[in-house]
């Protein structure tokens, strides 16, 4: 409960910080341009000296100047608030099981907005520029960098069909029928013409990647469906960009000619392919740069982030699709950068990306809630309800119709269950709102009407569809994501299968997608890898790279799980005896454990030590990083000694049962004696 009090306190602080200029004394100007500073005669910062003023004032020991940190302070406070709210919500586990986090965050935003409005301040609205340039890129980069490339490429045809044709269908269906509704006198919507309706249709038709990610990540659906819906949400950006700009330009004029439509199609190709090209160029530069960072490991993550962000910005400069550029950049640079960077940089990149995308996502949903309270609204029952209905209907029709066509070309057909999830998972989100916000009031007098409808639609999809999708997935028994880690056997047999299928396809004389995939892999190996990957790793076959990563990861896991490594094959009872001498000071607490429990613990430790030692022996013989692994082992040995004594002392204090000990220690699989 104290969490809530903290949060309310923080909200108050934000409100006050907004209101502070009023009481600051008038002429104090913020030094954002850095040169001039003016301040009231009564307030002085401790850092400034006033040589011109000769009157003796007492030297201020403590000063107060809020203005010069105001913006930064507010931004940090907002982010802090957002995450404390997020933490607070975790404390109510029942709630987070039923309601997806995105809904809760929107509610929090509503609450904050209401508080701010009640106090009398102007709640901040989700500024479109801030959204598109700061909040959206981290989420997309995170998605692109960790995109499961293989299922994505295998289903690319399906994804493109949904993204392009599906979005176009949605836009025109919704826009067209809305226009029909607007023509009815009873709706009082005479001011909305056809192009404005189509523009509105294009804004609400696109499935939003942020909302999809937020909801789908929690329900752990199988990879195929996830890749279909999420891939669609990413690739429909090009369609949205082109439609939006085309209609925005011509809605002012009032009519669109056939030539414009042709130009629109051409523009679509340029926007999407151009975006991908920009992304790939920056990815190659990033991979090439990472080749030379051998002696400067600390700045490696920086290159990944900067090049990707530059790719996004460059694409935006030319009105190309920034999202596609970012995805292409992240997905392309991933294998090469991973081969070049150190293990720690890999972890840094991963966690920074996850952290930033988490910040962005939280802020987006909270701001959506705040903007709902803030924004000027024009509620029209007909318009809003028809919008929601049409979006649902068009989505279902679109998915069913397209699947019918797509299934003729797919080997693994999409079942009705799959189609339902794809249709139901088409959530709308903040991108639609931001696009609506970008409209200018002069050209679009019905802007408020649109914004209200968009927000209501977002609320509907996120709340209703987001909340009900989890029970529906359970009810329909849709296949879930398998959590199993990719084992070496699976890797070997996946490769065998690939080569087998390519070979059999060649025997048949069939040059299908196996052939092209194989050719691409070979070209990549022969030319691209030599340029982009440093040193010996460029020659390393994928299987060996996989094996090495696996061995290193498992070695680290074993070390951290509490086993102690001994380079010699001596009996482990010796080591336990030496340890015991170190723990003389803990003897008192040790004596409290019963004798047979101690014996049990010793036995478990002994068998664990044997097994992990033999296992590591089998691995470390053959990994190329053998020297490295052994160095790590030696270094950890001393640490392990210390940890072991602490562990035994803790066990005494906690009186943990042997069963729990066993489950904690027995993380290493059992041994296999390999005869040479």
């Amino acid at each position: 409960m104290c969490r809530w009090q903290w949060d309310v306190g923080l909200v108050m602080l934000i409100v006050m910080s907004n209101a502070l200029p009023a009481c600051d004394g008038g002429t104090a100007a913020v030094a954002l341009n850095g040169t001039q500073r003016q301040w009231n005669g009564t307030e002085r910062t401790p850092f400034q000296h006033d040589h011109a003023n000769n009157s003796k004032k007492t030297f201020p020991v403590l000063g107060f100047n809020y203005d010069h940190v105001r913006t930064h302070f507010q931004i940090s406070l907002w982010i802090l608030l957002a995450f404390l709210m997020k933490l607070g919500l975790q404390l109510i586990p029942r709630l987070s099981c039923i309601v997806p986090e995105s809904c809760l965050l929107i509610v929090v935003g509503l609450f904050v907005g209401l508080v701010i409005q009640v106090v009398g301040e102007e709640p901040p609205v989700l500024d479109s520029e801030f959204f598109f340039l700061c909040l959206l890129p981290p989420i997309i980069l995170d998605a692109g960098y960790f995109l499961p490339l293989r299922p994505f490429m295998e289903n690319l045809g399906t994804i493109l069909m949904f993204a392009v044709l599906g979005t176009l269908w949605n836009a025109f269906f919704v826009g067209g029928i809305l226009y029909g509704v607007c023509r009815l006198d009873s709706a009082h919507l005479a001011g909305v013409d056809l192009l404005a309706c189509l523009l509105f249709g294009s804004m609400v038709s696109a499935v939003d990647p942020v909302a999809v990610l937020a909801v789908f990540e929690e329900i752990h659906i199988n990879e195929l469906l996830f890749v279909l819906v999420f891939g669609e949400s990413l690739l429909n950006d090009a369609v949205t960009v082109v439609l939006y700009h085309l209609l925005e330009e011509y809605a002012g004029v009032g009519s669109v000619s056939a030539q414009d439509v042709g130009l629109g199609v051409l523009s679509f190709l340029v926007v999407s392919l151009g975006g991908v090209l920009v992304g790939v160029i920056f990815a190659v530069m990033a991979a090439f740069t990472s080749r030379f960072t051998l002696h400067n490991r600390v700045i490696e993550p920086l290159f990944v982030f900067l090049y990707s962000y530059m790719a996004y910005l460059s694409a935006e400069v030319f009105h190309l699709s920034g999202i596609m550029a970012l995805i292409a950049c992240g997905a392309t640079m991933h294998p090469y950068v991973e081969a070049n960077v150190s293990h720690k940089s890999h972890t840094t990149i991963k966690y920074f990306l996850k952290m930033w995308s988490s910040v962005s996502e939280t802020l987006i949903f909270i701001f959506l809630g705040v903007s709902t309270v803030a924004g000027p609204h024009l509620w029209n029952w007909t318009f809003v309800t028809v919008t929601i209905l049409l979006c649902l209907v068009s989505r279902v029709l679109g998915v069913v119709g397209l699947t019918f066509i797509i299934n003729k070309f797919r080997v693994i057909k999409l079942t009705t269950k799959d189609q339902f999830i794809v249709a139901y998972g088409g959530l709308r989100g903040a991108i639609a709102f931001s696009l609506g916000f970008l409209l200018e009031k002069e050209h679009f007098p019905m802007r408020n009407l649109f914004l209200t409808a968009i927000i209501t639609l977002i609320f509907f999809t996120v709340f209703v569809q987001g909340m009900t999708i989890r029970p529906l997935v359970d009810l329909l028994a849709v296949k879930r994501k398998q959590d199993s880690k990719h084992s070496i056997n699976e890797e070997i047999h996946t490769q065998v299968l690939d080569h087998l299928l390519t070979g059999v396809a060649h025997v048949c004389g069939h040059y299908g997608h196996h052939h092209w995939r194989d050719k691409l892999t070979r070209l990549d190996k022969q030319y691209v890898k030599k340029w982009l990957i440093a040193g010996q790793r460029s020659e390393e076959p994928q299987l060996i790279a996989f094996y090495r990563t696996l061995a290193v990861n498992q070695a680290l896991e074993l070390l951290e799980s509490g086993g102690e490594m001994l380079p010699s094959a001596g009996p482990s009872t010796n080591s336990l005896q030496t340890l015991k001498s170190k723990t003389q000071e803990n003897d008192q607490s040790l004596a409290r454990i019963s004798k047979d429990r101690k014996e049990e613990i010793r036995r478990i430790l002994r068998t664990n030590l044997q097994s992990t030692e033999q296992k590591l022996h089998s691995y470390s013989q053959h990994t190329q990083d053998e020297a490295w692994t052994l160095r790590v082992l030696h270094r950890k040995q001393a640490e392990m000694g210390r940890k072991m004594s602490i562990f035994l002392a803790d066990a005494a204090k906690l009186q943990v049962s042997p069963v729990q000990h066993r489950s904690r220690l027995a993380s290493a699989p059992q041994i296999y004696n390999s005869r040479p």
Partner: protein
Amino acid sequence: MGTLFSAPDDHFQDLSEKTGFSPEQIQILHKRFKQLSNEEDLLRRDDFNNIPDLACNPIRTQIIEAFFDKRNFRQNAVGSVEEISFEQFVVVMSHFRPVPLHNMTEEQRERMRREKLRFLFNMHDTDNDGTITLEEYKHVVEELLSRSGAIGKETAKGIADAAMLEVASITVGRMNPEDFYEGITFDHFLKILKDIEIETKMHIRFQNNACALC
């Protein structure tokens, strides 16, 4: 739609029923068979050398062997032959036919999975003793790494060791230090590859019309 009257249609009809291919697909396969075997009725191992793309494939020997392996002819025979007829060619190919999975029950899917994994198992188990020993597995890994020279040979042993270790830990579980893991039986093979969902992956597209085959 080519006019292929060079083979008796009712023979194809039998084959079509037996293997599940459509008659058009069988005709196309027949054309390919004739192309590979230089218009003869039987296909030999050397004929596979005429396929240039196959030369780059690291496991080409195993693929070619699979065509001449009696275990894949669905006649419960063992051993290998020197030359195969068109019928046997089509039977081997039928292992790669795409199946309409969404209409199948769970046990039909399981049966398909067993069948396809059996094909893979036969490919690895060259001496046909029912288990894949460490040596045979090492051979598989070596072939996969066959283009990496010396590094390949050394790491192949390590990788094969690690893989066998993993199979042992998944299938047998806890073992005493003195126990020896013989080899991967077919059931163990099924167990470790259960997650790959091979029934959705092991297929190639067979053409339905005669246009694209030159």
